[in-house]
């Protein structure tokens, strides 16, 4: 793909520098507890970036992010707990399963216009949750399945896995959205009829975007299962987890790729520091997201851009 290398060089260099700087965090006295929050925040960042590929670029609100994440997580967990394969094979299978499940879900759903796509994806999560609870003898129901294997025990290694995954996801997605494919996808998101008139096959582009999103969601879901040591519905297959992913993307900055990382880390920090507020913490996070949505449609990253270019 011929990408304008000049335009992506600076953000890429920045990403590498930030990732390398973050990679030494475990060795400069960051506590294990903070490290575990950061690790979860980074997995969350991958979910959020993948979600924003559909929302920000393809213009589709996918309420079924946890359907893809859950497919990855449960595939890996089921394979591992039945002793079928080693963790890395399980993770690969989880990512593949998420892409297949995503394609089966999205191919017919993407032909639907308007709110129908969002609905189908929302219903997919509800169906999956019910099925998991129904077959609780295999899936552990609401309690979840314990995963016997681990990829790494050491918290620094786990942090590096999450960091590496987030960095790779960010670079691949950034490269993708700056490529001709990404530009066409953005055009489709902003004006589907005109894009169709120009001869682009809307369904094909959206389906590809959905599969990319599914791949990273499933991969992160499977890796996070091994990090947590368990796959349960409240962590992986839950409409409210989907809402948090959406909030992270909006707060961080829609259509920016890097914004959702900021948003996800913000969410991880917010859920820690707002814990004294009890049940009001989710309320305040939703409120912040709503205010950002109204007054700062570019999110946190949009704010940075505004400050840099005073007009």
């Amino acid at each position, binding site marked *: 793909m011929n990408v304008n290398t000049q335009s992506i060089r600076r953000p890429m260099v920045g990403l590498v520098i930030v990732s390398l700087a973050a990679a030494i965090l475990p060795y400069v006295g960051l506590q294990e507890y903070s490290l575990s929050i950061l690790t979860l925040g980074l997995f969350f960042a991958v979910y959020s970036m993948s979600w924003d590929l559909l929302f920000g670029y393809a213009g589709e609100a996918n309420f079924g992010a946890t359907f893809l994440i859950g497919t990855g997580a449960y595939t890996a967990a089921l394979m591992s707990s039945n002793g079928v394969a080693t963790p890395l094979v399980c993770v690969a299978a989880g990512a593949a399963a998420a892409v297949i499940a995503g394609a089966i879900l999205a191919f017919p*759903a993407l032909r639907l216009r308007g709110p*129908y796509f969002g609905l189908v994806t929302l219903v997919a999560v509800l169906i999956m949750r019910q*099925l998991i*609870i129904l077959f609780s003898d295999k899936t552990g129901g609401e309690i979840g399945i314990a995963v016997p294997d681990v990829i790494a025990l050491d918290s620094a290694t786990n942090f590096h896995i999450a960091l590496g995954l987030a960095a790779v996801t960010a670079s691949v997605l950034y490269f993708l959205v700056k490529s001709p494919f990404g530009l066409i996808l953005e055009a489709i998101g902003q004006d589907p009829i005109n894009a169709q008139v120009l001869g682009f096959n809307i369904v094909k582009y959206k389906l590809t975007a959905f599969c990319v999103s599914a791949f990273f969601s499933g991969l992160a879901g499977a890796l996070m299962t091994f990090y947590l040591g368990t796959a349960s519905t409240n962590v992986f297959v839950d*409409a409210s987890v989907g809402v948090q992913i959406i909030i992270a993307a909006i707060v961080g900055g829609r259509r920016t790729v890097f914004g959702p990382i900021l948003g996800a880390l913000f969410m991880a920090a917010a859920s820690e520091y707002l814990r004294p507020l009890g049940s009001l913490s989710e309320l305040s996070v939703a409120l912040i997201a709503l205010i950002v949505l109204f007054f700062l449609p570019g999110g946190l990253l949009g704010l940075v851009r505004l400050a840099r270019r005073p007009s």
Partner: protein
Amino acid sequence: MLTQVIVSGLLISAIYALATTGFTLLYGVSGILNLAHGTTLAASGIATWYLMGTAQLNPFLAIALGILTGVAIGLLTFVLIIRPLRTLMKLSVADEHVFMLVATLLWTIILQEVLSYIFGDVPVSIPQLVPGTIEVFGVRTPVSSVLVAGLSWCVITALWFYVSKTRSGQTILAASINPKGLILCGVNLNAVHIVVWAIYGGLAGLAGVLVAMILGVSPSGGLELTATAFSIVVLGGLGSVGGTLIAANLIGFIETGTAYFISPSVRTLPALIILIIVLYVRPQGLFGRR
């Protein structure tokens, strides 16, 4: 057994029909899918439960206040979420629907957390208003369930009468067909929207009270109620009130049949699967226009 399924199916379908007409009306007139629908229902149910139980109000007064809660939330949704979104941000049509979905979803979370902060996140149900049971086709049924079903159909009929026979109702119908033409006729579109949201809130409020009476509601159960309402509306065809009524009965019977013949734990599953199949085969719904 079969008559039992038919009778309970009829009762539950009546509530579903009432609980979704407001949702359809709103979509037909404003083109908005309000994801906070189920939480609005839950809020009215919980308010009535609180006023009746803890505050010891007269049941009928409590129900009236519960319906008013629905109206208030409907108007708040319009004033705080929908109108700012349309006036503050100049969105393209394609962007507007995803932003609308996301904004109403965030609003759902806010409502839900406020409710569970004040009342606690526990399922509540409103006691039956009228004690006793009667035989319907040889099936023992609580009197108040029959009353609830009757009331639902009366309200739906009244709504139909209002929209098709009164001047104010015709204005709403006109707003759904051609809003620009309506403005040219000198009608204040904003006022029409406020009336629609108030009617929507009233319908949702009443439905919430009835749902709380028969099934029970909880703050975090709101999203699932929205999903049920959403499925019914889409199955019937978005914006088609007649289709919604038929779909409400279909879903009601399928759910009841599943609960009786298979297991109560998979009650909602077949309806969701049928919904997906219908969407794939006939995306405009059973009775929808393209």
